[in-house]
């Protein structure tokens, strides 16, 4: 920013507002350059330069201006960018603070904002009544997708989505407090003072850059003898200095969820010229509050009359905010149309600032006495019992048409801006989100908090308490402390209306807008009712009223009143649509916060990961593990590498990283009994020092997991699970242990990550590991297949398994994980020296398939029993109970013709089937075909010199020897059904 005096706008009023010209910022809007003052929003800066036209509406592409000064803004949605990657669509001009260098553009217009071709929609608007698209575009049948829908899609939408990856950072913080206060106006600040005085931990949040709420514009309120806004700043400073208070500005409490949980979105750096690298753009606060004080105030409503949407028509409170806070006059000749006293004060403020007030048109016969007297004193023309029935002006309001109520005599009054107010709607959004129940306040035509569903309380404007002194008392009580705050206002406002004003009633066809962004008019609501939409939810959905990005903050009450009138029912009987989170839109990035890139999901790596990477490993994702997939040498593609690895393992030996397999240590005197109940196999017969392959089913009898279980001692088992299954298997086991078999004396501990597991498989495996192992004789005689021993490997305590998932002589060396890298390096060096290789999961898959070993989750899904998988032998016939014993005996699980796991060989050995291919008996049958099953595993087997496959086939084992067919896109492959063992059928090698 530069300190030199710049043109900060012709509409700045000298002496008005709280901004200082000390610092300014340059920005462009639709390519034109402007200067703003520090603290300006985009809206105030544009208005200061006399720019009202900022956007086009959604459906009719009508010119639109700035209606409000806050987050409820429906019109002024702009595209704001810092640079190409930092471009943000649909930004509220009334919220975004100007930063130096901001590039801002209007949206939803082509070729330009002032000349928008889409505005032709406005001419055809009679056709585009609510819900018209349900009634047409049906012929010809294909045309919806090909012609109409693309057209509608292009016309709809507002901003243009970013096309580059967002480089900004976002943060997340969990927080707790005794009292969370949403809103830092008079009520919220007072409640915070009160709560903080009790020593409670307090979090006070407000969506604006500074505290004060309505005090930004309301210059007639004094608190403790001070100007209201100044009091607010002093109070905030006092609160910030207290150790038990956290004040968060630019922070929106966007959602009030269950059990005192609120989501807050803090805009940390979007207002800064040059945000530091460590500063996040936005921060998500996830707060658990013991108690919540809602002090969100209320939102002013517009008047519903013909052509009430022209640029220059603005809410009274917004006009006052722009003048009293930003020092900007919204025009030079301003009219007022109101049903509420608040607009008078806007007129007073402008008048005192030297702006001409054309007239105050008040649809009421009796406005408040005090404002009427003041208007007279200031010499402002007041037309009570009159209404504005129309406006004129293409890109900005030029005149308003005024008539006495019930009278057809009209007169046009020239204006360049029009202030409107239909009164105030309490902001009950958070209260409603907390699932509190509202009641209808008939006297003031508004919904107010009634029954609370959580420990929270509403104070001030959002509770319908309009008087400042009463609001303060309410806030002090809500805070539970003892503080003295005295406030008073010059005027007590009266009035307000909801629904259509004079001249926009049911007998008219004018466009009187309710929902500006979605172009919903009063007559759209009436049409919906006429078409049988009698529920307010139906009316909302049919007209899309309140479904735009402002979520109906201005429109809901108007829509409801018009519907109620049409239905001839009292408003509370028509109901209110649900207030859904978020209160204002929240950036995805904020909700995602840290969970991106590396932190999106943990990438689990084994202790040997870096060493494997250095050996050129390609990795694959298995669950959230990264596993070495294959180890290509220079010039090798995947197939070549895998073939070499498969061959080498069987010819010499290979080293495989099996560390990811789940491991659970089961300890206690009843360990065997427990495993008896959890696995289909019997475990009491397993001797210490031995291991066994186990199958786990759920109660329904379907295979849940499998793995080798070793018995280290009478009371200690070492259970392995599948890589992906480890957490759920432990959870499943804990469930049974804690809740079904709590009498068993046994404990479970996950040791997956305690051990680095280095599998050495192949004829030379024993020779490779022998020099490293101490404390156990690993000869075939003393340490046969399926043995386990605790020993030392390279001087550290280890667990050695003699087991195999390849059908070869094999060992799995388990060492404490931190030792994994050095042990792996030593074993690999020796293996390499003997002509062996490293192999990855792909070769492991091929090698095990050559032996017909299943992979749970690949060769089984959740509908396969042990018998289906050819593992019936692993189901104990002697046990009287185990999890799954009954499920297995259900009729369909005992049925003939179930799908069974078999082998398949293609007639042409070089044809490798597709995993997932379907199998039929008759390939020439018409579709839909009868399918017998599918291919679960299929590989080129270098060792067999042909392709091999496993498949689940209906009645499969009885079909061995038969020819079946696998129809593919381009051809049909004939296959022969076989058993599942393709290599070393007698299984001698494993015992080598």
């Amino acid at each position, binding site marked *: 920013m530069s300190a030199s005096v710049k043109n900060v706008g012709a509409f700045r009023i000298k002496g008005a507002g709280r901004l200082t010209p000390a610092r300014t910022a340059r920005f462009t809007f639709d390519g034109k350059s402007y200067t703003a003052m520090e603290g300006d929003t985009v809206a105030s800066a544009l208005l200061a330069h006399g720019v009202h036209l900022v956007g086009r509406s959604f459906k009719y592409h009508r010119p639109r201006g700035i209606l409000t000064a806050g987050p409820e803004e429906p019109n002024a949605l702009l595209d704001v960018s810092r640079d190409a990657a930092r471009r943000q669509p649909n930004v509220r001009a009334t919220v975004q603070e100007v930063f130096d260098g901001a590039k801002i553009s209007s949206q939803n217009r082509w070729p330009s904002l002032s000349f928008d071709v889409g505005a032709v929609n406005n001419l055809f608007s009679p056709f585009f009544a609510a819900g018209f698209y349900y009634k047409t575009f049906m012929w010809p049948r294909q045309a919806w997708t090909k012609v109409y829908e693309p057209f509608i899609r292009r016309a709809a939408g507002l901003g243009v989505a970013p096309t580059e990856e967002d480089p900004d950072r976002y943060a997340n913080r969990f927080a707790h407090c005794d009292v969370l206060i949403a809103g830092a106006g008079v009520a919220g600040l007072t409640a915070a003072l009160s709560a903080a005085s009790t020593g409670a931990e307090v979090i006070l949040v407000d969506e604006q850059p500074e505290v004060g709420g309505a005090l930004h514009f309301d210059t007639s309120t004094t608190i403790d003898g001070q100007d209201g806004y100044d009091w607010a700043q002093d109070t905030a400073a006092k609160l910030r200095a207290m150790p038990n208070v956290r004040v968060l500005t630019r922070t929106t409490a966007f959602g009030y969820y*269950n*059990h005192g949980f609120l989501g807050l979105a803090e805009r940390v750096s979007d207002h800064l010229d040059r945000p530091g690298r460590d500063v996040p753009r936005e921060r998500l606060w996830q707060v*658990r509050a013991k108690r919540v004080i809602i002090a969100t105030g209320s939102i002013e409503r517009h008047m519903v009359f013909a052509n009430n949407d022209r640029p220059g028509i603005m809410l009274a409170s917004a006009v006052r905010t722009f003048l009293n806070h930003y020092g900007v006059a919204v025009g030079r000749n301003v009219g007022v149309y109101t049903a509420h006293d608040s607009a008078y004060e806007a007129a007073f403020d402008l008048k005192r600032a030297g702006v001409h007030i054309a007239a105050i048109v008040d649809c009421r016969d009796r406005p408040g006495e005090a404002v009427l007297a003041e208007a007279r004193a200031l010499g402002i023309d007041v037309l009570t019992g009159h209404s504005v029935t129309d406006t004129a002006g293409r890109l900005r309001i030029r005149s308003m048409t005024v008539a006495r109520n019930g009278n057809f005599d009209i007169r046009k009054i020239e204006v360049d801006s029009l202030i409107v107010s239909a009164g105030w709607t309490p902001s009950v959004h958070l209260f409603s989100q907390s699932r509190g129940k509202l009641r209808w306040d008939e006297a003031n035509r508004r919904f107010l908090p009634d029954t609370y569903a959580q420990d929270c309380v509403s104070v001030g404007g959002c509770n319908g308490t309009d008087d400042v002194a009463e609001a303060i008392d309410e806030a002090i009580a809500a805070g539970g402390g003892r503080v003295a705050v005295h406030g008073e206002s010059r005027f007590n406002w009266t009035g307000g209306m909801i629904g259509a004003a004079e001249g926009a009633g049911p007998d008219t066809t004018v466009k009187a807008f309710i929902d500006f962004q979605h172009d919903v008019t009063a007559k759209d609501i009436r049409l919906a009712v006429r078409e049988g939409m009698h529920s307010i939810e139906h009316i909302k959905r049919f007209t899309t009223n309140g479904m735009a990005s402002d979520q109906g903050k201005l429109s809901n009450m108007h829509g409801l009143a018009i519907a109620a009138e049409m239905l001839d029912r009292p408003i509370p*009987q028509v*109901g209110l649509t*649900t207030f859904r989170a978020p209160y204002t839109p929240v950036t995805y990035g904020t909700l995602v916060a840290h969970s991106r890139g590396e932190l999106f999901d943990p990438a689990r790596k084994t202790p040997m990961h870096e060493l494997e990477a250095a050996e050129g490993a390609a990795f694959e994702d298995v669950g959230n593990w990264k596993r070495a997939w294959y180890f290509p040498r220079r010039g090798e593609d995947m197939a070549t590498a895998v073939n070499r690895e498969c061959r080498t393992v069987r010819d010499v030996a290979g080293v495989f990283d099996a560390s990811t397999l789940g491991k659970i240590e089961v300890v206690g005197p009843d360990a065997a009994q427990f495993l008896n109940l959890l696995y289909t196999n019997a475990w009491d017969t397993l001797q210490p020092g031995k291991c066994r392959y186990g199958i786990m089913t759920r109660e329904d009898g379907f295979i849940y997991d499998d793995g080798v279980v070793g018995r280290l001692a009478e009371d200690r088992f070492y259970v392995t699970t599948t890589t992906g299954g480890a957490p759920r298997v432990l959870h499943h086991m*804990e469930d049974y242990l804690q*809740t079904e078999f709590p009498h068993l004396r046994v404990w479970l501990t996950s040791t997956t990550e305690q051990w680095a597991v280095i599998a050495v498989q192949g004829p030379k495996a024993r020779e490779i590991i022998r020099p490293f192992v101490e404390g156990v004789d690993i000869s075939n005689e003393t340490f046969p297949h399926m043995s386990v021993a605790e020993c030392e490997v390279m001087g550290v305590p280890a667990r050695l398994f003699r087991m195999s998932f390849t059908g070869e002589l094999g060992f799995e060396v388990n060492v404490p994980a931190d030792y994994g890298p050095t042990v792996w390096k030593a074993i690999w060096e020796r293996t390499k020296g003997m002509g062996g290789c490293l192999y990855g999961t792909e070769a492991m898959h091929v090698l095990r398939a050559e032996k017909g070993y299943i992979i749970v989750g690949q060769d089984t899904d959740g509908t396969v029993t042990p018998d289906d998988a050819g593992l019936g032998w692993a189901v104990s016939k002697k046990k009287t*109970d185990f999890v799954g014993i009954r499920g297995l005996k259900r009729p369909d699980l005992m049925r003939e013709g179930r799908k069974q796991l078999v082998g398949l060989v293609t007639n042409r050995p070089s044809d490798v089937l597709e995993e997932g291919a379907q199998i039929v008996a008759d390939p020439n049958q018409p579709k839909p075909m009868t399918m017998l099953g599918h291919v679960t595993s299929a590989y080129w087997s270098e060792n067999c010199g042909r392709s091999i496959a496993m498949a689940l086939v209906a009645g499969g084992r009885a079909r061995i020897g038969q020819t079946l067919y696998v129809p593919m896109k381009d051809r049909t492959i004939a296959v022969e059904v076989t058993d599942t063992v393709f290599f070393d059928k007698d299984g001698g090698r494993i015992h080598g």
Partner: protein
Amino acid sequence: MLLIHCPYCEEDRSELEFRWAGEAHIARPENMAGITDEEFAEFFFLRNNEKGLTYERWRHIHGCGRFFNAARDTVTDKFLMTYKAGLPKQPVPGVSATEKAVETCEQTEGDAR
């Protein structure tokens, strides 16, 4: 995000630390192998799925690891009590399981009566 009182940790903790574990007080049949198909379906599949007071199990999986029981209103999601696994079903003062549930706010607010 729920706030759940763990009867073992004796503290309210975020739902993020817990895993829901189904309807409570469904005992696994002692003579599992001997029950009928109907009894098995009843045991394994059929659930009350109450609207209103429900008894359910949770596990403080990222805390003390314990399974425990809870009484909760499925309409408001309010916990009425939690208690340790193995204890019999605890009555909730002033609430009976058959009491008609309160309508959700969405239903009542959206009504066009």
